[in-house]
């Protein structure tokens, strides 16, 4: 005889994550808006006034981390904590763990907000945080996992609804992604070098990066969509069968898509092809999710007209469909040849981020707040205004960037009838798209204003209501934890009642893709043909490279020349994988706001670089690059050089024994030589050889100079 148990759902933790989500959302989007304006008004970098913290290159990871991990991260925790309790009819496993999760996650974010503007970064996209924060993230994720799985094991509803499978897959995969991407060797309290170098680093990075999109931005949000959309529409999901099929397909296929970020790069062809094929296949399970969401509203479309929550959710799911069609298209090599390194990629990202993640978060917030405060939404009018501002914002954001992307493509590849580049000066292609950048900033502003209105609406809603910290609930205590299949019962019910098996099988499936793509790359020497003339960086060049990373130059400058005639004409010999074996981390970049620098070495005299770094517009009139006058003033800090050399040597760089003892002297020697060069070229500043500028010039002048003509030799 089963008895009725009375318990309470924890709403406080849901509210906490919700508040954190919209506050960090405001911060992250404001940073994005500032960056959009910096592209049009380079003075807004403030580096001209000697302030290094807010330049575009340093702000970029702050923006991406804030919107992904702080805004969406807290949003997904809000959705998970609310829905998991109610779907399983159980309170979270431990209130202490709930709050430990909450506060430690905010601590990670504060750590990011502090370290990233200081230039402490690994430069790996969406994994920029330094190693102590990586450790903290691991702790938080484990606590979250214990809390979540503890609740699952204590559940009163024995069947696991589809949202729960998505949460399980999310937890497992993010854990694996984070661990593998964080394989690094620290050489100081705030810095490390990655285990992988060059091509392998690139592959691991984009296996990670795309799956961060898949398992942090997609699967948990599909999970919350499967809960909140039916709740808001008061109708069951369109097809449960479809959710079964698309779940398994999605988690398997998504993992392989990473190489689509590396098409036409020096990544081996077979890996690129795998990435393309699986990315295209991914349309099916992604659209399965979209269709399930939209078709749930069959017969309820009139309610969408009246209810802002449903409006946000419909646009969110539609944007999800658009982004998951566009993404596979961009993964086709011919299309990617057009889009890669252009603003089309940025447009694509933001359709998904602003549309799917942003709007679904707002839909959840607008639905949750009145319920948790036992009142109605303060103003439906304001919510509708937010909706329209946001939607217009997305359009004004994406469309100009589509235009800019195509403009870049056409201009970069255009040849004159005589066979030379029509737009040989990269800067001309930048100036051409500045009006589009301006409209994009307007789009971002509209979206941001909408969010501000939304936050105001939520505050007023809370003020007029009374918060229900703990929500009473009751359910029958289950007699058994695991439900054996009765005759005729569906097989999937078997696994729905067995969360541990679900966990195990999800892990196996997602691991397969990673192992197949990464293991051969790591273990097989022949995957990266070596080039005999490629040598490790000198101590001064290493220092310069680390300054390049600190300033976030990789945010605007790529270092990967594709095998297209337009690129080899403009930049030089296309990039070979063997050139990057000492690049820790790799710096191929994802975007060309400025020109590719892979063969920058020897193109311009040292004095050109000196003047260009201090004020780019002296060498490139009209340039939008930030100024870096501090490089000519900051004293060169070589104290960590011995530690860097040791770390790199243990990772395989062939620095001679005891080289760390002479590294500092070597660096000073090279700096002096460069300073001498500069003097001869007419630069008359005092004390140049002591400045960071020497290191930067050394690094830039080294780029791409190791290979001579077509000579490639394997050791």
């Amino acid at each position, binding site marked *: 005889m089963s008895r009725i148990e009375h318990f309470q759902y924890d709403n406080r933790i849901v509210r906490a994550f919700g508040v954190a989500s919209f506050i960090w959302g405001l911060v992250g989007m404001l940073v994005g808006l500032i960056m959009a304006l910096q592209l049009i008004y380079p003075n807004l970098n403030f580096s001209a006034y000697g302030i290094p913290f807010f330049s575009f290159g340093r702000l970029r990871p702050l923006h991406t981390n804030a919107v992904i991990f702080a805004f969406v991260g807290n949003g997904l925790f809000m959705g998970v904590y609310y*829905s998991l309790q*109610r*779907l399983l*009819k159980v309170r979270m496993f431990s209130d202490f763990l709930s709050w430990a999760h909450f506060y430690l996650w905010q601590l990670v974010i504060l750590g990011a907000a502090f370290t990233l503007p200081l230039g402490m970064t690994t430069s790996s996209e969406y994994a920029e945080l330094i190693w102590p924060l990586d450790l903290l993230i691991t702790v938080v994720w484990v606590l979250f996992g214990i809390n979540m799985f503890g609740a699952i094991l204590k559940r009163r*509803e024995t*069947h696991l*609804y*589809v*949202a729960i499978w998505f949460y399980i897959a999310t937890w497992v995969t993010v854990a694996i992604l984070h661990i593998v991407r964080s394989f690094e060797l620290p050489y100081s309290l705030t810095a490390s070098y990655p285990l992988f*170098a060059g091509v392998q680093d690139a592959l691991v990075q984009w296996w990670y990066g795309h799956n961060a999109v898949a398992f942090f931005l997609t699967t948990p949000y599909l999970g919350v969509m*499967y*809960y909140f959309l*039916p*709740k808001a529409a*008061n*109708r*069951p*999901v369109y*097809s*449960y*069968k*479809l959710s*079964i*099929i698309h779940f*398994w*397909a999605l988690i*398997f*296929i998504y993992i392989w898509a990473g190489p689509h970020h590396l098409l036409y790069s020096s990544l081996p062809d077979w890996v690129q092809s*795998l990435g393309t094929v699986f990315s295209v296949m991914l349309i099916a399970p992604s659209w399965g999710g979209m269709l399930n969401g939209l078709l749930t509203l069959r017969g309820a479309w009139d309610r969408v007209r009246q209810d802002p929550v449903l409006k946000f959710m419909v646009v969110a799911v539609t944007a999800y469909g658009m982004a998951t069609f566009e993404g596979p298209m961009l993964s086709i090599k011919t299309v990617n040849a057009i889009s890669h390194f252009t603003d089309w990629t940025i447009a694509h990202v933001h359709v998904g981020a602003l549309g799917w993640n942003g709007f679904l978060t707002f839909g959840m917030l607008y639905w949750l707040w009145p319920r948790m405060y036992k009142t109605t939404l303060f103003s439906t009018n304001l919510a509708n205004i937010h909706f329209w501002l946001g939607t217009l914002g997305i359009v004004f954001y994406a469309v100009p960037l589509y235009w800019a992307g195509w403009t870049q493509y056409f201009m970069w590849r255009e040849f004159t009838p005589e066979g030379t580049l029509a737009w040989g000066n990269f800067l001309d292609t930048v100036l051409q798209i500045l009006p589009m950048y301006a409209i994009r900033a307007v789009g971002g502003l509209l979206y941001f204003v909408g969010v501000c209105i939304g936050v105001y609406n939520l505050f007023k809603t809370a003020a007029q209501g009374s918060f229900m910290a703990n929500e009473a*609930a009751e359910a029958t205590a289950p007699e058994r934890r695991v439900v054996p299949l009765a005759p*005729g*019962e*569906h*097989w*999937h*019910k078997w696994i*729905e009642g067995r969360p541990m098996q679900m966990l195990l099988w999800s892990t196996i*499936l997602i691991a*397969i*893709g990673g*192992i*197949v793509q990464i*293991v*051969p790359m*790591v*273990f*097989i*020497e*022949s995957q990266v043909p070596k080039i005999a003339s490629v040598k490790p960086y000198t101590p001064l060049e290493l220092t310069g490279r680390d300054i390049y990373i600190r300033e976030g130059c990789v945010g605007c400058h790529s270092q990967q020349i594709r095998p297209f005639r337009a690129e080899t004409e403009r930049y030089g010999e296309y990039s070979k994988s063997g050139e990057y*074996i000492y690049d820790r981390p790799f710096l191929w970049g994802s975007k060309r706001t400025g020109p590719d620098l892979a063969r920058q070495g020897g193109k311009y005299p040292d004095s050109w670089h000196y003047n260009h770094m201090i004020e780019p517009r002296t060498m490139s009139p009209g340039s939008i690059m930030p100024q870096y006058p501090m490089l000519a003033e900051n004293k060169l800090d070589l104290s960590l050089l011995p530690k860097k050399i040791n770390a790199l040597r*243990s*990772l*395989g760089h062939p620095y001679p024994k005891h080289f760390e003892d002479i590294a500092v002297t070597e660096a000073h020697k090279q700096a002096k030589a460069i300073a001498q060069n500069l003097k001869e070229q007419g630069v008359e500043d005092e004390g140049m050889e002591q400045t960071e500028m020497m290191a930067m010039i050394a690094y830039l002048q080294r780029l791409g100079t190791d290979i001579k003509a077509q000579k490639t030799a394997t050791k």
Partner: protein
Amino acid sequence: MYKYLLQSIEGIAWFGTAALLIFFVVFCVALWRAFSSHNDEMQYMAEMPLKD
């Protein structure tokens, strides 16, 4: 530590083939069983969010 932990792996093509086959089989099974499932069970699961 070494840059390359092993010097060679022979014949790794089976990695990809096996993975593809596993997925194909699992997917076909999932498809078949999903379509042969009972509607009332599916209905029960689908209505779960509405029951709290």
